[in-house]
């Protein structure tokens, strides 16, 4: 064993010349480590590897907009008064001076017109709320469509879903706080939804509003929910979400050297610390730009809440759009029986369907796992085409969402495009059942088509664009093999297995227990996976290679790089240049 003596000065002294001076940072770190074991933590986490892909940034947008929400929201609390006590407005906004209004509304006006940067913070707060929920949605779709929710990440899928739901509730509570005409109308609708609850609806409404709507307690109650209760839950769940992310390590895309057993990417320190930190400032900066240049929720134009007033074209924030659409297209069913009223027209769209849709999304990973019986861990992402049924399901759900969203703005559509409001509503009532299945079918076939194309590329190579003419006068297109790395990436996926029931009866000829369940499972498995195109086997690839070599032999002599391009600008470079592309 030889010592590295390069750092030791060539003197005869007994101490290395580069001995570290005791410095302050080191002392602080030592002090902290003595108490917190930070050294070990740093050793484990500081160089933690994160794989790189643009789609992994979507969740980060949600995380950073949440931080922006905390910062801007804290600023707003310094002036906002969550009270429904009334007084006449005396602030800077002349048009409303002397108008009686709640303290909540007056203080929101104060923030907008009498606090420097107040309007900016309000608008940034509202914009980042929209970004937060939008980013969660898109992040969730990415997770879904790539199968990132598979074992061991199912719990994180559930946590993420709950985060989305809480985010939407938080948003609703937030935009109800200013107590302006629009937010009051939103609360009025919420009251109608609550009252439609069977048996206890009226009591729930009276308890929520502290008496008859609108009462004088809903704003302070929503305020504490908005600034403490839900943010606390969000923080805790985001913490759990991130901890699980670190524990499971991030998923990655398949590729040369990227397998189920490893994770390949850049280390936390310094690359991701800088990139993610920088990205926080980017998200914050974009929000600031939006707050500066895009007006949002100009409450001074709506006036204070008055339950006898409303403006045409009232719209909730975008994420409430589907609830709005459901309410609008629901037929007017109501039952009056034994002296009670059951409002199907409000209960079904307001209290049942949103949770059914939510349940379908949250439950899909568990359904898929049950059908496949797959108990392995999965760390490699699936391309959307390689799970055609799942991708098609998402496409259908997105269609449902889009249709309901459009239905939620049926009055806007009617006035902007001069369509009949009634026709739009009737159309939506049918479309919501007809279009998603069509989208499902088309997406599924599309995915399967793309899978076929992948196999074509593997077996026959890529299309070079060079047309060959044979001695007989027939024309063919030259195909050349794709690179080894691309070929490996295309084949780095599992084969789907179709679950079969072994037998309806057990060995004694008696009907086996759970046959019905097994039958359903087998049927689902066939439906979900039977049409998928599997990657070629080694033999098929070998055979295709033989075939291609044979073709090439036939084409020898014709095979020189300038073929067909003698007289145009598309001169190939050298004979050694093939393959033309690296795909």
């Amino acid at each position, binding site marked *: 064993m030889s010592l590295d003596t390069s750092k030791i000065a060539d003197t005869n002294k007994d101490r290395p010349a580069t001995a570290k001076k005791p410095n302050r940072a080191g002392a602080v770190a030592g002090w902290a480590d003595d108490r917190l074991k930070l050294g070990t933590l740093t050793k484990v986490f500081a*160089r933690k590897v994160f794989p790189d892909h643009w789609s992994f940034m979507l969740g980060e947008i949600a995380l950073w907009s949440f931080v922006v929400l905390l910062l801007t929201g804290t600023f707003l609390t310094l002036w906002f008064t969550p009270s429904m006590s009334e007084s006449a407005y005396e602030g*800077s906004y002349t048009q409303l001076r002397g108008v009686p209004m709640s303290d909540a509304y007056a203080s929101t006006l104060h923030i907008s*017109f*009498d606090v*420097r*940067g107040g*309007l*900016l913070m309000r608008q940034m707060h509202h914009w980042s709320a929209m970004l937060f929920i939008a980013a969660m949605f898109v992040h969730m779709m990415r997770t879904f469509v790539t199968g990132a929710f598979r074992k*061991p990440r199912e719990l994180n899928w559930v946590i993420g879903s709950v985060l989305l739901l809480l985010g939407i509730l938080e948003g609703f509570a937030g935009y109800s706080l200013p107590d302006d005409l629009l937010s009051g109308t939103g609360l009025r*609708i919420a*009251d*109608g939804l609550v*009252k*439609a609850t069977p048996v206890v609806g009226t*009591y729930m409404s009276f308890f929520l509003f*502290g008496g008859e*709507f*609108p*009462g*004088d307690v809903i704003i302070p109650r929503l305020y504490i929910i908005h600034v403490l209760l839900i943010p606390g839950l969000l923080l805790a769940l985001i913490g759990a979400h991130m901890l699980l992310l670190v*524990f499971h390590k991030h998923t990655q895309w398949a590729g040369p*050297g990227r*397998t189920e057993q*490893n*994770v*390949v990417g850049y280390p936390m320190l*310094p*690359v991701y610390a800088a*990139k993610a*930190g*920088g990205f926080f400032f*980017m998200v*914050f*900066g974009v929000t*600031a*730009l939006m707050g*500066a*240049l895009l007006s949002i929720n100009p409450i001074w134009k709506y006036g204070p809440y008055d*339950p*006898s*007033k*409303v403006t045409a074209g*009232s719209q909730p924030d975008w994420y409430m759009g589907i609830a709005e659409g459901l309410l609008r297209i*629901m037929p*007017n069913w*109501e039952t*009056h029986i034994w002296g*009670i*009223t*059951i*409002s199907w027209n*409000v209960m079904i769209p307001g209290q049942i369907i949103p949770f059914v849709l939510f349940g379908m999304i949250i439950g899909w990973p568990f359904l898929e796992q049950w059908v496949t019986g797959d108990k392995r*861990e999965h760390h490699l992402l699936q391309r959307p085409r390689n799970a055609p049924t799942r991708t098609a399901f998402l496409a259908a759900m997105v269609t449902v969402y889009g249709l309901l969203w459009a239905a939620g703005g049926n009055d806007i559509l009617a006035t902007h495009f001069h369509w009949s409001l009634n026709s739009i*509503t009737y159309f939506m009532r049918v479309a919501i059942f007809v279009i998603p299945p069509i989208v499902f079918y088309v997406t599924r076939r599309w995915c399967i088509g793309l899978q076929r194309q992948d196999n074509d590329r593997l077996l026959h190579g890529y299309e070079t664009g060079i047309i060959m003419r044979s001695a007989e006068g027939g024309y063919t297109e030259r195909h050349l093999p794709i690179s080894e790395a691309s070929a490996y990436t295309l*084949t780095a996926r*599992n084969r789907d*297995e179709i679950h079969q029931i072994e037998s309806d009866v057990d060995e004694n000829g008696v009907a086996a227990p759970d046959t019905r369940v097994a039958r359903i499972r087998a049927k689902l498995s066939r439906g979900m996976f039977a049409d998928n195109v599997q990657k*070629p*086997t080694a033999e*098929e690839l070998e055979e295709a290679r033989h075939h291609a070599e044979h073709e090439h032999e036939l084409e020898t002599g014709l095979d020189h790089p300038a073929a067909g391009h003698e007289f145009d600008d598309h001169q190939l470079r050298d004979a050694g240049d093939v393959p033309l592309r690296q795909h």
Partner: protein
Amino acid sequence: MTDNLPETTHDDHAGVAMQEPIPDPGLPAHEWRPTDVDPKAEKRAERQVAGLFVLAIVGAIGFIVSYIAFHVGDNPDTIGNLGASNVALGVCLAVTLLAMGAGMIQWARKLMADHEIVEMRHPASSSQEDREAAVSILQTGLEESGLGRRPLVRNTLLAAGGILGLLPVIMLRDLGPLPGDKLDHTIWDLDTWNAEMKAWWATQNRTLQRVVRDVVGTPIKVTDLEIGDLVNAEPEVLFQTNPDTQAPLVEGTDLLVDKSKAAVILHRMLPSDIVSSQTLNWSVDGIVCYSKICTHVGCPISLNERTTHHLLCPCHQSTFDLADSGRVLFGPAARALPQLELTVDEEGYLAARRDFTQPVGPSFWERG
């Protein structure tokens, strides 16, 4: 490190080992960036990053200057209706933040080492050994506590815990009063009035409460309305003041609660256009009066189709026929708009003969 990655066979599910058609070629070799090999490019990147950070400083100074220079005041209409202060502060803040972000990212991309690192994964589960140890520890705990052997202790504890959980629920009782029959009446009903209102009423020497214009509170004569007119109206008591104290009889939250039930609309049409006999009987010279509160989820209804006598709710587009008992023509509302029986009082002003004969607004369970 990349060379000794295991050659994986992912398809060993159910014991069927199938060979991967193409073996893993392993991580591609690292490629140097221009900034790694060209000192000029490196210097340039360094200047770019520093330049961005300087820009961030400039933005922050601009923010401070704007904070002092611009007043928010009462004019939000400057610079594209956005307010000068808002735009200046926001843009400066955005420049600072974006420049900082871009600088950090440029630094990471161009100058920090870009060697990819391979980290091995480990199963999420604990080892079999640990699992067994955990189970035995839990069993020991269970046995030592005697939870299984002493059902009396266990069950009484469960009962105590359950009833303890009930306490917070009970404590929520005072969140609000019980509904009683509050939703069945509105302030159109003189019996719901408090003593102060009744004292004022006693001075009026009238028997019927007038239907007055919203906002201003002026009473309405039949001749004030043209055919096709729609007027937002309220009960007159909402606009009256106590003759002694000059304070409004109804104000604050009470006013909002009463408005949310008692708001009405008046609409005048040709008496011959009226379809249902009840609507005709409850009208005065073609003037009908309906609750303004939608029977769907309670939005105030206000969009009038002048010629058809249809009234459209702006929230969810339920449409009601004012010529025919407020019946639902379209949309998600299930019940007709409640009609208010209209008449003229001693001085010829429009007045309500009595309260609505049914609860107004959204449906609720006990509504019947």
